[in-house]
C-alpha cells in the first residue's frame, strides 16, 4: 500500500458531541425515535478515544439508514440490505478503522437477511445497530419481518399472516459474539450499550427498539411509559440475578428444572433466581426466546464472548504468507514452465 497517505491522527481526547454532528439538517419526522439514537451515538463516541477520522458509518436504505449523513465522520449510505457486506470490505481493507453499520428491521432482516447472518458468523470487527420499529418507515408503513402476526398495514389489510422474525435469536444462531438490546428512550442504557459494543472485538449486534411515531406509534409503549415500564423491562447484568418490577419483586427462575418462568422473589428466594452470564451460550439462547407476553422484555448485553475476528485472521494470514520474504510480480510472471525462443 505504498500509495496510502501518511496520516498523523488527531487527538481524540479533545472530541465532543459537536464534533460528530454534521452540517446536514436532520430530516426524520418530529418525534421519531431515531433522533435519540443519533444523539446517544454522538454523545458516546467522544468517550471511545478513537480519532474522528477513523470512524466509518455505513447504512443500507430506510429512514434509519439516513443516519450516516448526520454524522461528521466518514460514511456511506448504500443500497438496501447490503451495508454489512460493504462494511466487511471496509474492515478487510482497513482493519484499523472503527466501522459502524446502521440498519433497519426491513433493511437487515428482509432484503439483507443473508448478509446479516454472514457478517456475524464471520465475526467481522464492527458494530451493527439495528433500529427495530417493526414497520417499514420510509416506504410508508408496510409490515416488516418483525411485525407481529395479524398486523394490519397497507399491504396487509386483513392482518399479516407472516410469523415474525426474532433478530436476537438469529444473531445467536449465526454465532454472533456480542448481542445486546436496548430502547431509544433509555438514553443512558443506550449509551452504555454503544460503549460496550464499541469495546467488543468482533461483530457487536445491538437491537434498538425504535418508535416510528408515524406508522407504528407505541409499538413499544409498555416498555417506554413510566407507569408500565418497570413491570415490563428487565435490565440484564452480568453476574446479577434476573429481577424486575416496580419494587424489584419479580424474578426469573427455572421451574421444574428446565422451564424459565416469572416468579415472586420473596416466596421463591433470591438465591434461586437465574443469574445472568453473558458468556453462556445456553442462557443467551434461552433468553432469546423471552418473546411471549408472560416474560419481561430483556435489555442489556445478552451475550458477549471472544472469538478471533475475520479481519484480524485475514491480516494474520497475509502476515504469515509474507514472512517468507517479499516476492515481486515479475518473479511470479517469470515462474512456471517457461522457455526461451532464440
Amino acid at each position, binding site marked *: 500500500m505504498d500509495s*496510502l497517505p501518511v496520516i498523523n491522527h488527531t487527538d481524540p481526547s479533545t472530541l465532543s458531541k459537536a464534533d460528530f454532528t454534521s452540517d446536514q439538517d436532520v430530516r426524520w419526522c418530529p418525534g421519531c425515535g431515531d433522533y435519540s439514537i443519533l444523539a446517544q451515538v454522538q454523545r458516546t463516541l467522544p468517550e471511545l478515544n478513537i480519532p474522528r*477520522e477513523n470512524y466509518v458509518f455505513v447504512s443500507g436504505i430506510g429512514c434509519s439508514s439516513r443516519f450516516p449523513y448526520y454524522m461528521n465522520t*466518514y460514511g*456511506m449510505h448504500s*443500497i438496501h440490505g447490503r451495508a454489512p457486506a460493504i462494511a*466487511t*470490505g471496509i474492515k478487510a*481493507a482497513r482493519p484499523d478503522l472503527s466501522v459502524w453499520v446502521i440498519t433497519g428491521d426491513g433493511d437487515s432482516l428482509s432484503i439483507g437477511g443473508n448478509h446479516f447472518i454472514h457478517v456475524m458468523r464471520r465475526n467481522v470487527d464492527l458494530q451493527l445497530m439495528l433500529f427495530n420499529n417493526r414497520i417499514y418507515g420510509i416506504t410508508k408503513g408496510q409490515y416488516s419481518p418483525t411485525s407481529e402476526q395479524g398486523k394490519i398495514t397497507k399491504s396487509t389489510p386483513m392482518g399479516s399472516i407472516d410469523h415474525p422474525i426474532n433478530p436476537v435469536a438469529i444473531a445467536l444462531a449465526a454465532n454472533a459474539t456480542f448481542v445486546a438490546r436496548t430502547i431509544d428512550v433509555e438514553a443512558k442504557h443506550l449509551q452504555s450499550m454503544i460503549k460496550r459494543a464499541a469495546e467488543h472485538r468482533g461483530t457487536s449486534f445491538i437491537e434498538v427498539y425504535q418508535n416510528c411515531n408515524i406508522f407504528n406509534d407505541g409499538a413499544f409503549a409498555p416498555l417506554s411509559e413510566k407507569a408500565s415500564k418497570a413491570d415490563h423491562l428487565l435490565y440484564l447484568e452480568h453476574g446479577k440475578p434476573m429481577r424486575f418490577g416496580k419494587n424489584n419483586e419479580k424474578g426469573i427462575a427455572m421451574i421444574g428444572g428446565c422451564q424459565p418462568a416469572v416468579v415472586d422473589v420473596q416466596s421463591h428466594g433470591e438465591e434461586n433466581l437465574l443469574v445472568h452470564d453473558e458468556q453462556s451460550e445456553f442462557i443467551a439462547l434461552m433468553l432469546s426466546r423471552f418473546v411471549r407476553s408472560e416474560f419481561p422484555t430483556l435489555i442489556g448485553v445478552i451475550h458477549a464472548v471472544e472469538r478471533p475476528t475475520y479481519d484480524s485472521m485475514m491480516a494474520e494470514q497475509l502476515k504469515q*504468507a509474507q514472512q517468507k520474504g517479499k516476492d515481486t510480480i515479475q518473479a511470479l510472471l517469470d515462474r512456471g*514452465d517457461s522457455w526461451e525462443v532464440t
Partner: protein
Amino acid sequence: MTTEQLENVVIRFTGDSGDGMQLTGTEFTKTSAIAGNDLATFPDFPAEIRAPAGTLAGVSGFQIHFSSNAVFTPGDAVDVLVAMNPAALKSNLADLKEDGVLILNSEGFNKRNLERVNYDKDPRQDSSLSKYRVFDVDITGMTLKAIEELKLNQRSAVRCKNFFALGLVYWMFNRDPKHTIEWVEKKFAKQETIKNANIYALKAGYAFGETSEVFTHNYIVKKADIPKGRYRNISGNEALALGMMAAAELSGLELFLGSYPITPASDVLHYLSRQKKFGVKTFQAEDEIAAISAAIGASFCGSLAATTTSGPGLVLKGEALGLANMLELPLLVIDIQRGGPSTGLPTKTEQADLMLALHGRNGESPLPIVAAKGPGDCFYAAIEAARIAVTHMTPVILLSDGYIANGAEPWPIPSMQDIPKIDVQFRTEVEGFQPYLRDPKTLARPWAIPGVPGLEHRVGGLEKQDVTGTVSYDPQNHEHMIKTRAAKVAAVADSLPPTEVDGDLEGDLLIVGWGSSHGAIEAALPALRSNNKKVGHIGLRYLNPLPKDLKEICGRYQNVLVPELNMGQLSKHLQTELGLKVAEYHKVQGKPFRVIEIIEAAKRVLEAN
C-alpha cells in the same frame, strides 16, 4: 516407417470426464510449446462434475492446434482424434477431417459402453469409420501390462491409460516426453508408485508407437517463427489474475477481490487466493451482491478493488454497480461470459453480455467497458481496466468469456518495467476539499479515504449536488449530474491509443470483432486478402466509450462486417453510437467461431457487393 513434415496439426483428446483428458492435453501443450511451436488450446468439459461414466454428458475434450506458423485459434477441424470410449467418439467424430487419424481405446468399446450411447453396432466393425485412418489400440490392456509389477489396485492402474495415450501421441509427433516425465516426478514426488505407474505408462505408449508397426507414419512440426524472448503458457483466467496483481503493483495499491464462485470465473478467485504473499486480499462472499458490495467498501478505503463473475452474477451485481457509479469509486468488474440466458450453458462460451454491461442498471448509468481478445491479452486488459478505473474514478466492466478463460497460449513474459505506472493520487489536502470537485480533464472526483483527518465526508446512492456531494433532489442538478457522469465516461475516449487495424488499412471490407473472436478473424485474414480483396480487421479493446477514430476508420472500407457470438449486440451498439450500417454475422451455439465460418461470412459480404 516414414516421417512426414506438417505445418499445422490439430489434436483432440477425448474421453470420459474421469479419464484425465485435460491433463493429457495440458502436458502435450507444454511439450509442444517448449518444442517451439506456436499453438492455441481449447479445453471443453462437461457441466456435470461427474456425469455417469461412458455417457455423452460426461465427455471431456481438450483440443490443441500447433504449428510452425502463427496460430490464432485452436483450429476448425481435427487431424488426430483420440477417443477413449464410444461416447467420446460419437460426440467428436463430426469434427475429424476426412482421412484424419482416429485412435480408439479398444477396451472402451465394450458392449455396455456402446449401448449407453445407442450404438447398435460397434462402429469399428461397420463401414462408418472408413473415411478415417483408424487405429484400434488396446490402450487399457497395454497400460495394465506395463505397470503390472507395481501392483497398483485395478482402479488406479486403469487411470494411467491417459499417459499411455499421451506417450503414443508424443511418439507420433516426435516429441520428447522428458518434460512430462519431469512434471510427473515433481507432482507425485511423495507417491512413488503412482509416479512410476504414470511414467511407465507414458514410456509404454511411446514404445508401442515406435515398435508396433501399426503406424506407418510419424510427423514433425517444425518450430514456428516466433519473436525472440522468454515464453510461458498462460490461460485467460490466470492472465486476468496476474494482470490485476500487476495493476496493483503499478498503482501502488492493495488488491482486494470480492467474489462468489461461478463457472468459468472461479479460477480467478482460486488463483488470487493463493497470492497472500503479495498482500492480495480475497473474500469469498455469501453471494454476488455481497462480493461486489465488499469490493465497494474496499475501494472506498483506497484498495484496488475487483469483483469477478459470470453472466448470472453480473445480473445480481447490477444494483451495486449503480451505487458504485453514484459513489464514483474505482472498481474492476470482470464478467467472464458464458452461454445464457439464465444458467444456460455454464461451461460453454458466448459473447452475449455486452448489452447487459452497457445497460444493465437502473437509471442513466453508463460505464466504461473493455474487452480481452485472448488468453494472454487478459493481462493487459486488466491493467487497462484498472488504469481507467482509478484515473476516472469509475467502475469499469471487463468482458472476457469462457473460451478465453480456459484457453491457453504461449505468452511472451512481460517485463513490468516496460509497463507504464498507474498514477494514483489520494486526496490529503484539507484546504478546498469537496467530495465531488472534479479534475477538469478526467472529470474524476478526489479519492479521499477514511483515516485522513479533515476530509470526513459522506457518500451515498442518493443524487447529490455537484461539487459538495450533499443530497439534492433539485431537478436541474440531477440532469446536470447525469450528464456529468456520462461526460466522465465519454472522457475516457480522450486518452485511448489509436485503434490498431490488422491487414489492409482501407478497401473492401473491415471486420470488426471483439473478445475471443479475435483469433478466428485474424486467422481468416490471409485467406480473404489473397483474393485481390483489401480486408482489414479490428479487435476492439474499448467497447464503451468507443474509440474516437473508429468511425473514420470504418469509413475507409466499402463494408463493415461484425461477427459475434450473440445476436448482434456490438452491431447494434455501433449502429446507435456511430450510425454505422454493418453486416452482421451471428453464432450462438456455445462454441467459438471456426476460421472457415468467418471466411465464408466475409466472402458473402464481399460477393454481395
